[in-house]
């Protein structure tokens, strides 16, 4: 199959997966919450007017539609423009960054909502579990072992590649970058485990589920990034650079899939958002 045709197919898939399917799932989730947990019964869930949240959801939808149009325009541009392929990977990467913007908006929306919840929370009582939280409470030792093993393989891989003295090879700078990324992800995990309570109404059981989801997602992304870094070096060494744009697009599919592991709404305790304490799980 022609490499360009493959790129168009994979890029089309990236557009539809990350700017159509993913936002559609997100919006279904948001509208289900609006419908099943309305403000009159669950006032603490809506620190501001529900109309504001509906507008934000609409804005999210429109942004993704515009990004889909941009993506189709990008494919057309790839088709009609004579290219050498060197910049394809960069363009695909920056298109993904644009696709990511509406989801950053959702994250900011969530943080602002929690902040407003904290400001409005007049509950004088606070509760906490008297057990220490440990990383192994949320993720298996085997999973952690896998992450460590992949890091060691990455180190060994760089030592192996270094002996060929490729002019383009960044050497141990790759190790520094990946190690820095591991540290950064470690900080995110640490903050998830021991950081401040974001949602003052969330039950402790739901918070534990959130912590587990975050940790598993981060560790999966760490594995994906490390494997992808090795793949990129291998492709360059093997003269398969023409496939780089395709591989980066497929990599973003993986990242998108890993980001979609949300807890099912049926398992979340929404009673905590009622005015009076309801039954807890």
């Amino acid at each position, binding site marked *: 199959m022609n490499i360009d045709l493959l790129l168009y197919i994979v890029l089309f898939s990236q557009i539809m997966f990350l700017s159509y399917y993913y936002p559609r799932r997100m919006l279904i989730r948001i509208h289900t919450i609006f419908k099943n947990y309305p403000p009159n019964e669950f006032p603490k869930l809506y620190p501001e007017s529900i109309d504001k949240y509906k507008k934000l959801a609409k804005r999210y939808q429109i942004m993704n539609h515009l990004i889909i149009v941009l993506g189709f325009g990008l494919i057309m541009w790839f088709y009609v423009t004579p290219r050498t392929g060197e910049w394809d990977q960069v363009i695909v990467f920056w298109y993904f960054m644009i696709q990511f913007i509406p989801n950053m908006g959702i994250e900011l929306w969530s943080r602002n909502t929690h902040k407003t919840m904290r400001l409005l929370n007049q509950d004088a009582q606070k*509760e906490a579990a008297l*057990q220490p939280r440990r990383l192994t409470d949320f993720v298996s030792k085997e999973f952690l072992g896998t992450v460590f093993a992949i890091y060691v393989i990455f180190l060994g891989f760089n030592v192996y590649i270094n002996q060929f003295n490729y002019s383009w090879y960044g050497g141990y700078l790759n190790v520094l970058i990946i190690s820095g990324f591991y540290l950064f992800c470690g900080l995110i995990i640490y903050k998830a485990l021991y950081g401040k309570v974001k949602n003052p109404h969330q039950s*402790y059981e739901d918070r534990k589920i959130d912590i587990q989801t975050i940790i598993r997602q981060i560790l999966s992304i760490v594995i994906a990034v490390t494997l992808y870094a090795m793949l990129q070096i291998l492709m360059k060494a093997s003269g398969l650079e023409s496939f780089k744009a395709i591989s980066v697009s497929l990599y973003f599919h993986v990242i998108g899939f890993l980001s979609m592991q949300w807890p099912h709404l049926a398992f979340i305790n929404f009673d905590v958002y009622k005015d009076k304490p309801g039954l807890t799980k």
Partner: protein
Amino acid sequence: MKIIIDSSLSSPLFKQLMNQIKNAVTAGLLKPGDTLPSIRQLANDLELNHNTVAKAYQLLERDSVIQTKGYRGTSIHGDAIQNSTVNMNDSITTKLSETIKSLRESGATDSEIRIAFSNVMKNQ
């Protein structure tokens, strides 16, 4: 086991923490050797200042209800059950009462006792 603090009560927050941990020990909900969350974890979960939790832990350690072993964290002391029933304030009040009674019997006035107490507190 959960701990609940109430900022609307007149009792200081660190006292509420201390009392609940001591009550949990005497009720058998916390046993010698059980580990407690770190100061950071508990402070963030209860949305308290770290110093409040640190003070509670410090006083519990003074009373030998908990013990801290560096990186291994904080755990319930081996003698926590009997130590949890000891009330430091009651103990201080009893000793002070005996001392004041003895000083009065030896002829010291309340004013002299108060001045001497204040000087001793300043110098120590």
